[in-house]
């Protein structure tokens, strides 16, 4: 049986339906990431689980117990907020021990738990400081520490890395992954950054407009997106979308059944640039981004589409050069006119 | 419970304020249409708009209205103009700026009665007052301010008290001025006057409006300064609407007429208030 279960969750703010019926099961110890564009309802969904909002319809079960109408303080969940929400008038130690103090835990036990968490997070030297005196990364760690100390049933993270600079974000991401591996705690993590989702998650939940678009492991989403939205949301640079009408020739040549009025989705690595005349169609190089380990080449086709190709080898091509485009049909994705995955062959 | 609690918490403040507003208003309206003189408690009864007629046709009414407008208008002009100048003057850091600001703001915290007496006696006394001494030093005849220029004396006193307020608002507002914008304008070749015209004044625009509105509301009911200095006199020379109502109510004991006048003052203040509320409301949306 699932550890945490959402059944038909709905939430309306005034006239606006933010969550339109979400069902989800989370297994114990699992790291689940909610991802989606801003306004998709991922944060609201997390806040519903946290008990900071009350669901308009549906039930939330934790360990089989209905917690839909339980106040947050009774749910035994811990949350790391986007702004960290540290108590500015308390020291780091007091911040981390606050929940245990409220729960009237034994002071010796509190001491032990806090110092253990502080050791894990490298906060030992800062315990007596106030949040004001810490750097952004340290505050972030205190916020995580505050959650760890409680050993809650579920960890909730609400875009915890969005206030950090790029270098620190990468580093903290790795730390969170390591932490999860060590503690094995059930975690729900909200982000709009699909890289975070891909790197951290056991399973990713892609949300759009208050509905679940797809649930799956990161690679499942990458390799078998359920629809055009997921396909384009996951992966950088975005998957190329070519209107099927432009690829009729390709269809007849390779025997692929290209959906009428639909789209063909091509990962950048499925677009292969060759000498002019040797590919399926011709294109002109617009821009070359040499990143060292990989090279991104932006080309435009005669019929006006923009495509991006990714290759691991370096290229002598420069802007304005004419190239042929070959397509790795084995990794192409096919979508019908409504953006759903079309059955192929 | 999620909805009940917030309401419960607001209820005491809202309830008391509602009573504070509605009870006097309703009573004023009631008193204003009856015969109600505290000295003649036996004469009562509905008299329609007679009190209003009496209040408005009273020759003092025109004088008081003019005085009110003159007082409010002059003080606003004086405080806004000088407040802006002082704020601009003290905007950039200089040695002792904090002390200067403290000196500048102090008069605002002086209670109106002290303020009025300080000016009445020690500044404006025609024989011993500081101003008289200065006049004599330069060989002029000292002026008997409160007798010869009663309204302007009151205006001076009130302006002295409200100038710090305007200055403080403008100083605060200038602090939020975008420094990069000023630097950009310097790169564009703007001199100080052009900066003043195109950057500072537009930036202060909102504060000008706020100062005008707030001062209007407070100055419409200037009372203590008049009460302690001129007592509204000589004659009606320095009587404003607020003081006229006071005279009707507590000197002539005619609560009916006073209430009619009060309603007039409420209408006057609310005209200014509507604009202020609009402006603040816009600010809330941000």
């Amino acid at each position, binding site marked *: 049986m699932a550890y945490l279960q959402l059944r038909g969750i709905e939430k309306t703010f005034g006239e606006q339906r933010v969550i339109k019926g979400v069902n989800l099961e989370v297994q114990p110890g699992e790291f689940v990431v909610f991802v989606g564009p801003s306004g998709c309802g991922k944060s609201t969904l997390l806040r519903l689980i946290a008990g900071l909002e009350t669901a308009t319809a549906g039930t939330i079960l934790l360990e089989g117990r209905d917690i839909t109408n339980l106040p947050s*303080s009774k749910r035994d969940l811990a949350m790391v907020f986007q702004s960290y929400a540290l108590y500015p008038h308390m020291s780091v130690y007091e911040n981390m021990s606050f929940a245990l103090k409220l729960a009237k835990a034994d002071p010796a036990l509190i001491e032990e738990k806090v110092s253990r968490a502080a050791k894990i997070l490298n906060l030992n030297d800062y315990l007596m400081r106030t949040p004001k005196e810490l750097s952004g990364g340290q505050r972030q760690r205190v916020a995580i520490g505050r959650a760890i100390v409680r050993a809650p049933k579920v960890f909730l993270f609400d875009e915890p890395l969005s206030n950090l600079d790029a270098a620190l974000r990468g580093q903290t991401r790795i730390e969170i992954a390591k932490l999860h591996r060590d503690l094995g705690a059930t975690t729900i993590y909200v982000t709009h950054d699909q890289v975070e989702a891909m790197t951290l998650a056991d399973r990713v939940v892609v949300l759009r407009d208050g509905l679940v678009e797809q649930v799956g492991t990161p690679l499942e989403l990458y390799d078998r997106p359920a629809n055009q939205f997921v396909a384009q949301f996951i992966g950088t640079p975005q998957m190329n979308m070519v209107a099927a009408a432009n690829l009729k020739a390709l269809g007849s040549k390779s025997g692929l059944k290209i959906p009428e009025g639909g789209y063909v989705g091509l990962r950048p690595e499925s677009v292969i640039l060759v000498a002019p005349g040797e590919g399926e169609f011709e294109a002109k190089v617009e821009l070359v981004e040499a990143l060292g380990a990989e090279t991104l080449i932006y080309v435009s086709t005669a019929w006006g589409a923009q495509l991006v190709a990714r290759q691991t080898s370096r290229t002598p091509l420069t802007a304005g050069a004419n190239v042929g485009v070959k397509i790795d049909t084995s990794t192409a994705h096919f979508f019908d006119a409504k953006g759903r995955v079309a059955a192929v062959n | 419970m999620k909805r009940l609690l917030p309401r419960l918490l607001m209820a005491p403040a809202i309830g008391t304020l509602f009573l504070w507003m509605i009870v006097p208003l309703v009573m004023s309206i009631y008193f204003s249409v009856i015969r109600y003189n505290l000295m003649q408690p036996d004469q009562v009864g509905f008299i329609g708009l007679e009190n209003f007629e009496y209040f408005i046709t009273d020759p003092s009414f025109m004088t008081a209205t003019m005085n009110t407008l003159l007082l409010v208008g002059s003080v606003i002009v004086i405080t806004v103009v000088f407040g802006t100048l002082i704020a601009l003057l003290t905007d950039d850091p200089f040695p002792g700026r904090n002390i200067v600001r403290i000196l500048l703001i102090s008069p605002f915290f002086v209670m109106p009665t002290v303020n009025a*007496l300080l000016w009445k006696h020690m500044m404006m006394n025609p024989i011993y007052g*500081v101003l008289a001494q200065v006049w004599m030093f330069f060989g002029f005849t000292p002026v008997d301010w409160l007798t010869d220029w009663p309204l302007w004396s009151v205006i001076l006193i009130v302006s002295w008290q409200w100038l710090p307020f305007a200055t403080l608002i403008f100083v605060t507002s200038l602090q939020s001025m975008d420094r990069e914008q000023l630097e950009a304008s310097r790169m564009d070749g703007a001199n100080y006057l052009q900066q003043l015209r195109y950057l500072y004044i537009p930036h202060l625009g909102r504060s000008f409006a706020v100062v005008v509105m707030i001062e209007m509301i407070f100055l419409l009911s200037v009372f203590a300064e008049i009460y302690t200095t001129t007592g509204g006199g000589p004659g009606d020379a320095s009587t404003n609407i607020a003081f006229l109502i006071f005279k009707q109510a507590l000197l002539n004991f005619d609560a009916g007429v006073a209430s009619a006048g009060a309603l007039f003052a409420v209408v006057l203040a609310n005209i200014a208030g509507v604009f202020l509320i609009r402006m603040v409301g816009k600010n809330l949306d941000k």
Partner: protein
Amino acid sequence: MTQLQINLAMKVLRTILSWAVALFLFFPLGWLVLTAFKTELQAIAVPPLLIFTPTLENFTIVQERSDYMLYAQNALITSIASTILGLMLAFPAAYSMAFFKGKHTKDILMWMLSTKMMPAVGALVPIYVIAQTVGLLDTRTALTIVFTLSNLPIMVWMLYSNFKDIPGEILEASRMDGATLWQEFRMVLLPLTMGSLASTGLLCLVFSWNEAFWALNLSAAKSGTLATLIASYSSPEGLFWAKLSAASFMAIAPIVVFGWFSQKQLVQGLTFGAVK
């Protein structure tokens, strides 16, 4: 002159000018303070004395007049009581509006502001009649109530605009940490809002202390505040400026100092947050 020298000259000029303006505007107040330490004869000396041997006799005389103590006591009691009462009413209201923002929150705030538009004189007769009817005329209770109510909108606004700047996530974090409503209030909200409570209270204290309109009209010998005592010096008979100055000095000194500390809040409170 080089540009650097011009800049320096401008700065010197501005400094001198700023100081001159400040001293000029402060002069009446400074004069009051000086006069408070003069003898009555020195106070009306021609030409005015700038240098003299200061004396404390005025303060002793003013203090010995027992009614001064009574007025001071009245002022202290009414302003402190109205401040506490006001905070007790305003705090929950502002908390509710800032953290449980509803559809009508803005309307309520606007309406509160609008009650401030009602000029005091408009309510004079009704309030006087009510106070007389229930026997509260010339009592500290009446003044306290009136001061509280006339300051309440400003207090709610000041607290509200301060509370709004506290991230709601901090309160949510405490709820996640298992705090009850009371614990949330006592251990998180109260420590965080102490500063704004203090400055709001301070400003309110200043207003009540200085209030003259209601004090003059609702009180007499029994419950008069310092504002009314000072006003009674307005009669021209007898030139006792030194004593008047001493009394005034004692009446305004604490409040002016308070005022210096609450300048910033004053701007927020008086402009209802429209100027930042």
